[in-house]
């Protein structure tokens, strides 16, 4: 039984930690590439959302490399994500691949089914060890999220471009090597030290928030490294969703700092009802970021994503109302990197000149009176 799962941000570190702890066989799909996208787009339904195609591509590449047991999360909607597993199972079956797929659902009604699937997946390991492994993996995930947050906040001050990214990559390795809670907290300390010791220079600060659909926000290959690009352009960043925020059952005290209730409250004048996925959070965070004095918001969405389409229809209104520039980037297999880079550059320039205009105004006023 060779277990695999699709890539999504730091998911690979977290899940491999579980399987390593339990000493089970697993393999990662080959890293995301153009081929992944090609395969996914070829087999996937025409206007299914982008993550369905990319994760399908991951599965196909993993099966080609010898995996036979696929893990996928399923749900109860109203977003399409809940149906990914079922759709992908049918597509892979029709394409003639040999595999078993285990769907993990956390809706109360489906819990017995999930427990049955977990029993097969844990292959005779005890439930206690499974719970312990999950808890430990979650702790690792939290450390990674904190480090990513730190990277977003400091990348714009790098003296040498890419230094923070390189340091972050080293931190990932250190964390996946940690085996106990004690070593994890030691690694955390070390990692933060190495991140903070990256050489910096003084720069003019502008702050940009990233909101949007979680898969695209979390998966750097498919969002065309938006975070790195913005950081290199000199923007201090914050994002609305982190991996463990998305995973955690409770929505209080997220890494991103703004619980769901707060962003729903902020979105209320514009969007009053839950629309699935992160639709309402995207709108709410745009408002929150304005309150915190950010200079702009970048909204990431996959093409045809239903909740984000609603958010995208409403965001121009929010932008006008509260006065914060919003750039919506719709990404799919046709999106070119150069186009996105140009738009990001223009957006950062715009945010910067707005900030300067605001900074200059108070100086002008005394001379006028």
């Amino acid at each position, binding site marked *: 039984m060779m277990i695999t799962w699709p890539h999504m941000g730091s998911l690979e570190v977290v899940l491999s930690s579980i399987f390593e702890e339990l000493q089970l066989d697993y393999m990662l799909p080959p890293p995301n590439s153009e081929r992944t996208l090609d395969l996914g787009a070829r087999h996937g339904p025409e206007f*299914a959302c982008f993550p369905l195609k990319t994760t399908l591509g991951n599965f196909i590449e993993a099966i080609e490399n010898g995996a036979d047991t696929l893990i996928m999360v399923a749900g109860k909607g109203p977003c399409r994500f809940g149906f990914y597993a079922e759709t992908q199972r049918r597509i892979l079956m029709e394409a003639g691949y040999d595999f078993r797929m285990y769907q993990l659902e956390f809706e109360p009604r489906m819990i017995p089914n999930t427990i049955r699937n977990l029993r097969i997946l844990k292959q005779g390991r005890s439930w206690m060890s499974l719970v312990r492994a999950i808890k430990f993996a979650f702790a690792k995930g939290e450390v990674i999220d904190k480090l990513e947050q730190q990277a977003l906040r400091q990348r714009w001050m790098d003296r040498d471009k890419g230094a923070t990214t390189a340091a972050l990559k080293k931190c990932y390795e250190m964390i996946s090597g940690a085996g106990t809670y004690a070593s994890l907290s030691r690694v955390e300390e070390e990692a933060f030290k190495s991140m903070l010791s990256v050489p910096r220079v003084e720069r003019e600060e502008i702050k940009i928030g990233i909101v949007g659909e979680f898969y695209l926000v979390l998966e750097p290959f498919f969002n065309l490294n938006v975070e790195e690009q913005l950081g290199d352009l000199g923007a201090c960043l914050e994002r609305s969703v982190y991996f463990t925020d998305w995973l955690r059952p409770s929505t209080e005290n997220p890494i991103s700092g703004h619980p769901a209730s707060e962003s729903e409250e902020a979105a209320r004048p514009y969007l009053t009802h839950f629309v699935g*996925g992160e639709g309402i959070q995207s709108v709410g965070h745009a408002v929150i970021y304005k309150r915190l004095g950010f200079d702009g918001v970048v909204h990431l969405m996959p093409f045809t994503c239903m909740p984000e389409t609603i958010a995208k229809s409403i965001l121009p209104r929010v932008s006008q109302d509260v006065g914060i520039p919003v750039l919506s980037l719709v990404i799919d297999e046709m999106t070119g990197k150069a186009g996105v880079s140009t738009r990001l550059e223009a957006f950062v320039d715009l945010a910067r000149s707005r900030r300067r205009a605001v900074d200059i105004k108070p100086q002008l006023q005394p001379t006028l009176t």
Partner: protein
Amino acid sequence: MNVGIPGGLLYFRYGKLWSSFLDALGVEVVESGETTRSILSSGVSKAENESCLAVKVFYGHVMALRDEVDALFIPRLVSVKKRTHTCPKMLGLPDLARAATEDKLPIISPTIDFQKGLWSNYRAVYSTGRIFTSNPLRIIRAGIKAWGEHRRYLEKLTQGLEPRHVLNGEESENLCEGRELRIGVIGHHYNVYDTFTTMSLLDRLKGMGVDVITADMVPEELREKALKRLPKYIYWSYEQEIAGAILACTQYGLVDGIIFMISFPCGPDSIIRVICEHENKMMGNIPMMTLIMDEHTGEGGFLTRIEAFVDMLRRKKRRMEETEEMEEAVIPA
């Protein structure tokens, strides 16, 4: 006070209910009527690029009503059945309309959610009534009357009449009258019944001598029974009907062919399509064509595909009849 009801999306299903409810409360109801080219183009220019054709049409209807009415009536249908949701776009529809009209027009949007039980729905309807009248009895009477009208309207749809004829009270030919071929035209109400965006598909099929079965006309028990085949419960209310209708059509051989109408880029339908095509292939393979409509769909290409599909079905049927005749001719000898 006059209240506008945009004639897009769920209007094809609940239009009668809404208009007769408001009518019974003494409100002057303004409807935007059927989709026209100008409605479509104003909707396309106003709506978000990524929204589906039906939402764009809906925007057009909202724009058409914007200057004529004092308020818009756009209910938020969260769930019309236990354990299901409607499409996210319908969950956000009043908010979309508010963004489109730039907050200039009040929007009456009671929230209907059957996951929360009957009481909250009663409250939603009642508070809508209170906007127009202070007489509680009148609200209840209006509600009961509207519900009756709605049931009669749906009943007529299951008998095979087209919504626009029913709404206008015209006499019309039945969609299914025992013509030579029978095709299931399955899809959302707003995809199948909108004469403009479908380029009067139903009339054209009638003209070609084809009987049409819509999802409404497939009996509900058959739909529910057919849905039991699926390992995963479909959590969208209207997709359940569509998938149920397609599966019932193939499982019980109700039709000679199926046309699945989707508006680009409908989220739930993209998934349902994969599941239905796969199930259809495993069950008995009734010819199935998926028509995807958007604002750029050309009439020529659309017609050619339908004609080719109908011709193909006709030839298939004739060949089957011939082989049956031959078999019959062989047996006596």
